C-alpha cells in the first residue's frame, strides 16, 4: 500500500514538475506570470486524444502533438503574450486569464462539451508486479504509471541538461539574472523569450498528454492543477528549476499520502467518526497549509534564486 502510494505520489509530482517548470522559467526569465499555462495543459490532452484516435497510436500522437502545441504557443506568444512582458503582473494575469476563457471556449466549440478518452495500446494497459517488499505481500502497479514516471524523469533530466550545460541554457540563465545586459551583449532577447515560452508551453502540454489516458481530456482540466503548480513554484522559490523539481515531488507525495492515509493517522488520536469527517477536509487543505508554514519561515520559498 505504501509503495503503491509512493509511486502515485511521485507520478503526481512529476506531472506537477512538468507544469511548474514552465511557469517558473517564464517568470524567472521574462518576469511573466502566465495563467494560460493551464490552457496548454488542456490543449495537449485534447490534441493528443484526437491524434490517438486518428493515427491509432498513442506514442505517435505524442510525437505529433508536440510540434502542434509548440506552434500554437508560438502564435499566442507572437500575438498576445509578447506584448505583456513590459506590463505589470496584474495586466499579465488578467490578459492570460482572458486567454484561458478563450481557449476553454474554443475547445468546447471544436471538441464539444464532453470529455475525450485516450485509448492506451495493449502493451501499456497491463500491470507490473514488483514482487514482495517489507510492507506489502506483492506490489502491483499499472505499467502506464511506471512509463509516466520514467518519461517524466527523462524530460526533467533533459531540462536540467538544457539549462545547465548548453549554450541555449547559458543564455536562459543569463536572461534570468540580467535581461538588459544580455540584450546589450547582442543576444536577440525577443527570440529567446519566444523560445522559452514555447518550451514551457510544450512541457505543460506534455503533462496534459501524459495524464489524458488516466483522467481523459476535459474542458477546464488545467484550471485546478495550475493553482497547485503555483503552490509548487512558490514553495520551490520563483524562478528556480531545482526548487520546482524538489517542491513538485514533495507536494505530490504529501498530497497523495494525505488523501490515502490521513484518516488512519487521525484515528490514532480521535474517534473514528471524527477522523472520517476531518480527514478529507484537512487533506484537501494540506498543501496550502504546508505552503503557509513554509512561507512563514522562508517568504521567498525554499530555493530563492540569487538576487538580480
Amino acid at each position, binding site marked *: 500500500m505504501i509503495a503503491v502510494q509512493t509511486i502515485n505520489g511521485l507520478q503526481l509530482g512529476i506531472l506537477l514538475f512538468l507544469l511548474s517548470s514552465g511557469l517558473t522559467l517564464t517568470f524567472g526569465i521574462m518576469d511573466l506570470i502566465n495563467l494560460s499555462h493551464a490552457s496548454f495543459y488542456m490543449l495537449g490532452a485534447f490534441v493528443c486524444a484526437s491524434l490517438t484516435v486518428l493515427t491509432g497510436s498513442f506514442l505517435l500522437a505524442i510525437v505529433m502533438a508536440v510540434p502542434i502545441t509548440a506552434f500554437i504557443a508560438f502564435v499566442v506568444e507572437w500575438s498576445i503574450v509578447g506584448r505583456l512582458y513590459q506590463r505589470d503582473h*496584474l495586466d499579465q494575469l488578467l490578459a492570460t486569464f482572458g486567454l484561458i476563457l478563450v481557449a476553454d471556449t474554443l475547445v468546447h466549440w471544436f471538441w464539444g462539451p464532453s470529455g475525450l478518452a485516450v485509448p492506451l495500446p495493449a502493451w501499456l494497459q497491463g500491470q507490473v508486479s514488483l514482487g514482495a517488499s517489507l510492507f506489502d505481500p506483492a506490489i502491483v502497479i499499472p505499467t502506464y504509471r511506471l512509463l509516466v514516471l520514467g518519461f517524466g524523469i527523462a524530460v526533467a533530466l533533459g531540462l536540467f541538461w538544457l539549462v545547465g550545460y548548453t549554450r541555449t541554457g547559458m543564455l536562459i540563465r543569463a536572461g534570468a539574472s540580467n535581461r538588459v545586459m544580455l540584450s546589450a551583449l547582442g543576444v536577440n532577447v525577443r527570440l529567446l523569450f519566444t523560445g522559452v515560452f514555447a518550451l514551457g508551453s510544450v512541457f505543460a502540454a506534455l503533462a496534459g498528454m501524459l495524464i489524458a489516458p488516466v483522467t481523459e481530456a476535459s474542458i477546464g482540466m488545467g*484550471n485546478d492543477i495550475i493553482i497547485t503548480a503555483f*503552490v509548487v513554484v512558490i514553495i520551490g522559490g520563483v524562478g528556480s528549476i531545482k526548487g520546482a523539481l524538489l517542491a513538485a515531488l514533495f507536494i505530490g507525495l504529501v498530497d497523495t499520502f494525505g488523501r490515502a492515509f490521513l484518516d488512519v493517522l487521525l484515528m490514532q488520536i480521535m474517534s473514528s467518526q471524527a477522523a472520517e469527517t476531518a480527514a478529507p477536509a484537512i487533506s484537501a487543505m494540506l498543501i496550502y497549509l504546508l505552503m503557509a508554514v513554509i512561507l512563514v519561515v522562508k517568504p521567498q520559498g525554499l530555493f530563492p534564486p540569487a538576487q538580480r
Partner: protein
Amino acid sequence: MTDSRLPTGVALITLILLAGVPLSLYYAGHIFWLDIFTRAVVLAIAAASLNLMLGFAGLASFGHAAYLGIGAYAVGVPAYYETYGGGGMIASYSGWWHLGLALGASALFAAVTGAISLRTRGIHFIMITMAFGQMLFYLLVSIDEYGADDGMTVDLTSQFSHVDLSDPVMLFGICYGSLLLLLLLQYRLKHSHFGRILAAIKQNENRTRALGVNTFYYKLTAYVLAGVICAYAGVLMANFSTFISPGMIEWTRSGELMFMVILGGTAWVFGPVVGAMIFVLLEYFLAGLTVYWHLPFGLLLILTVLLFRGGLGGMLQRIGATRGEGQS
C-alpha cells in the same frame, strides 16, 4: 490636476440609472430586470471592496471571491442547522447572527492569511492569495454535509425584525443603500490619513517605510477591511440567490472580480461599480446570444488589458483633461 467633473458626472448618472431602471421596469411588470440589477449591485460591493486593496494600496489579491463564500456560507450553514437540527449554538435564522458570523469569520480568515501573504510582494502575493482562496474552495468541496461541490439551497433568508429580505424590492433597496454607504466611506477613506498612507505604499513602499510608517499594519488593515466588506456582499449574495456552492469562490470568480475593478479603473472610487454593471449586463446579453459567450468575453478581457490602460475611469479622466485644456 486633471478635471474630475466628467468622471463625477458619469458616476452620478450611473447611480441614478442603477436605481431608476430596475425599479421602473419592475413596477412596469418586467420583474426579471430587478434580479439582474440586484446581482450587479452586490457584485459592485464586492468589487469595490477589492478596490480598497487593489486601487488604494496596489495589493493585487487574486483570492478575493473567498470572502464572498465566507459571507454566503455564514448565511447558509446556520440556516441549514436550524432547519435540519444539529450544529449546536451556530444554528439560527437570525440575520444579525449571520452578519456577525460572516464579519467575524472573514476578519479572522483575512487576518491570518493576510499576515502570511503580506510578508511577500508582487507576484508572490498574487499567487499566495490565489492559493489561499483555493484552499477554502477545496475545504468546502470536501464537506459532504454542506453539499460538497453541489452546494446547498438557502431555504429561508436571514431574518430581521423590520426587514423582509425575501421581498425583492426591499432586498434591492438594502443592497443599493449599502453600496452608496460603501462608496461614501471609500471616498472619505481615500482622502483620509489612512488613505494617503496606502497611496504612498502603492507608489513606493520602501520610501514610505523609511518615513517611519509601519507599512505592514496599514496593508493588513486594508486587507482585513476589504475582506470583511466582501463577506458582507456574500451575505447579501446568499440572500439574493438563495443558493450557495463552492463554485462561487473558485479562483476564476476572483478573476472576474478583478476584471470588474480593472475595467472600471482602479484610480476611481466609482470604477468597480461601472465595471460590475458592464460585467453583469455583458454576461446576460452574451449568454443569451450564444453558448460560447466566454469567447467574446475573454477577448474583451485581453483587449481591455492591451488597449485600455487605466480602465474606463482613466479614459474618462483623459477625455476630461483634454477638454479642460481646450477651454483654457
